[in-house]
């Protein structure tokens, strides 16, 4: 029988026991000639040690009990007797491989959920969100918009009448069920926005850049498309979902940090491009029903944005490329051409809705 000396902590108190170890059926711990514990060899694991002595623990029962082997030659024979000494050591190669494998699996699943699952869930949830919630969101967005932009309405009566006619036509063709409040506002930014709950703002900046009523009509139809699809609610759900998902991946539920920011930008942009393309579809369909070509809208967009192809940066763009949008719109002329939406006088009145043409030609990146 092989024996050796060791120090033993029984895990019940921190008293150091000078013991004798015997390699028998188990690792027998003997104090004063009495066997006080027996550790089955397959349960024995190595415990952290930094002074060169071997420290052992056992996984059956008393998990804080420790053995410190003193005698080196004896320690070797103990180690040989323990078959699973390094089992489940998280720094070992097998454990690390497992961690890598499951992390990759989790990451792949989360990325797929981000790209396909979240848009799908948002799509299904959007109709369930009550209209009252959407109106509330709209009020919130409205109070922010009016802080950031000059949202004083333009009220030249002839212009308002022309604008009303245009919106009335579009509302019929887009098949909207919710009432729409559309206003031309004084801000010089060349843009138009649709808020949750059916509020649409056309900024004077865009009106000034427009050369025909069809250009404006297309943009408005696009915005009505957003309202029809309840895109604000959907985008809100998608953005919230994306933050959660990436928080899960990278460990920050509130969603800050550079990596999260980057991944979120990519996912949100991909979701947003999808919504924009769908709104363009509404615009194309609506213009076709009115017997007008959607092409002027595409030309207006390209005139404002300029050439857009920026290589890889396209992946972070919130909108499809203006070139691509124009191409799609040019490819869909109406089957039966119809009369102009506004006559020359009405168009001139709409252009003058904010008073005589202003000097303000401040341009910013549009988000039509």
């Amino acid at each position, binding site marked *: 029988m092989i*024996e050796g000396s060791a120090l033993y902590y029984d*895990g019940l108190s921190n008293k150091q026991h000078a013991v*004798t170890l015997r390699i028998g059926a188990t690792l027998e711990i003997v104090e*004063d000639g009495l066997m006080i514990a027996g550790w089955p060899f397959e349960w024995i694991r190595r415990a952290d040690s930094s*002074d060169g002595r071997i420290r052992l623990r056992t996984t059956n029962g008393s998990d804080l009990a420790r053995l410190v082997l003193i005698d080196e030659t004896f320690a070797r024979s103990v180690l040989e007797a323990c078959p699973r000494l390094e089992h489940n050591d998280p720094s070992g190669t097998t454990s690390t491989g497992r961690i890598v494998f499951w992390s990759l699996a989790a990451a792949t699943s989360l990325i797929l959920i981000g790209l396909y699952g979240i848009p799908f869930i948002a799509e299904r949830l959007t109709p369930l969100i009550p209209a009252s919630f959407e109106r509330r969101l709209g009020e919130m967005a409205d109070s*922010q918009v009016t802080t950031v932009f000059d949202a004083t309405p333009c009220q030249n009566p002839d212009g308002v009448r022309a604008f009303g006619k245009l919106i009335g036509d579009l509302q019929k063709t887009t098949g909207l069920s919710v009432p729409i409040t559309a206003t031309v506002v004084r801000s010089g930014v060349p843009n138009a926005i649709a808020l949750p709950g059916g509020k649409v703002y056309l900024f004077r900046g865009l009106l000034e850049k427009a050369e025909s009523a069809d250009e404006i009509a297309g943009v408005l139809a696009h915005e009505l498309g957003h309202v029809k699809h309840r895109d604000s609610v959907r985008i809100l759900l998608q953005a919230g979902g994306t933050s959660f998902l990436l928080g899960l991946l990278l460990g920050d539920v509130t969603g800050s*940090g550079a990596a999260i920011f980057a991944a979120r930008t990519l996912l949100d942009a991909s979701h947003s491009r999808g919504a924009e393309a769908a709104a363009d579809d509404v615009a194309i369909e609506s213009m076709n029903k009115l017997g007008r070509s959607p092409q002027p809208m595409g030309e207006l967009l390209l005139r404002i944005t300029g050439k857009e192809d920026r290589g890889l940066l396209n992946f972070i763009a919130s909108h499809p490329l203006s070139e691509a949008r124009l191409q799609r719109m040019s490819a869909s002329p109406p089957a039966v051409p119809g009369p102009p939406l506004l006559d020359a006088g009405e168009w001139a009145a709409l252009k003058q809705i904010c008073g005589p043409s202003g000097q303000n030609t401040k341009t910013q990146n549009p988000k039509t």
Partner: protein
Amino acid sequence: MHDPIALPGSIPTSAAPPPVNRIDFVNEGGTFLRMLARGALLLLVTFGFYRFWLSTSIRRHLWSRTSVAGENFEYTGTGRELLIGFLFALAILVPIYIVYFLIGIEFERLRAFTSLPLVLFMAIFGQFAIYRARRYRLTRTVWRGVRFWMSGSGWVYGLRAFGMQILVALSIGLAYPWYAAWRERYKMRHTFYGDAPGAFEGRAGQLFRRGIGMWMMTIGMALVFMIAAIAMSAANGFSHLPRSGGTILGVLIALWLIAAPFVYPYLKALEWRWWAQGVRIGGVSMQSSLRGGQLLKIYLKILGWVLLVLIGWGVLAGVVAGLFYVSFGEFKSFADLPLGAKIASGIAIVAGYLLLGLTIGVVQRFYSQHEVWRAVVGSLTIQGVASLDGVAARGEAANALGEGLADGLDVAGF
């Protein structure tokens, strides 16, 4: 200890028992650095999931290299526990996050941009997480077969800590010693090693007296500058600063801005000394001789290495960009490049960014964890270890929920 029965071939006790009142740290910086480098790569390929196992390895290393009376500490936590804690934390944080989000919408509707106060709730929750995380780490700390543990309420701590932090902010830092003394007292009074209770005997007044000079040099000076600027502009009828006075003030402020950060390590060292002196576990007490210069050196090394890493990666990026230009120079703009080149450059940029971040992470972890730990433990002397002989085991292992919350809320504490 009883006389062991002499069995053939057995030597019952070690040759020379180590001195009892000793605390040591075994410096294996190379091993630690290799562990960090490997961990950084694994963080990359696991999209960050490896962080639970990396912080476990770091703690195991630091704990096991630290010994008192010749017996090393042991960290018995596992990465899996941290992962589970994190998942539980998500289950709690997700509904809170949704409620937070909805409340935010309500408030925004009432008036734009007013949901900020809600951040305060999250701040209290962060303190709660810090307390619970400490409890987890403490109950995974084992020495001589007995674990440390902790009682007390994370909520009581979180609420009071938050309240006192507001006082500290209102008093522009002057109330800090009282906050620190309360904080350490609360934590240590609820800390136990087996059945040996902890205590904290550091006094706020002590910390205040020792630190007030440094407060004067930093925040005090800033106040002086502010008053001087107001006084000078007042003398000028509040229109503008007189030119000469303004220049002198500007130079002084510039000097102050350069000098003030150097005070931080000295303040930190002072706090460490005060803390070590105040901590009691059973009859054990400590003294620290940590010098501010030691910490300053560590911080400067971090700065130096980060600069070197930036320069190194910058040169590498320059070379890669140069090669790229040589190969594709005939194209006038990025848009004209062939698709393969666009993708390759995109991958190179992302990889460069990630590797840079990971390298800086390794440098930062090595110095702020290993080197600071080494300096602090190396500065300690310890008395009364014999009073811990025969301590009986008490306390249960706590769950890692706090760690998960701290991870989720991005807060850290010691």
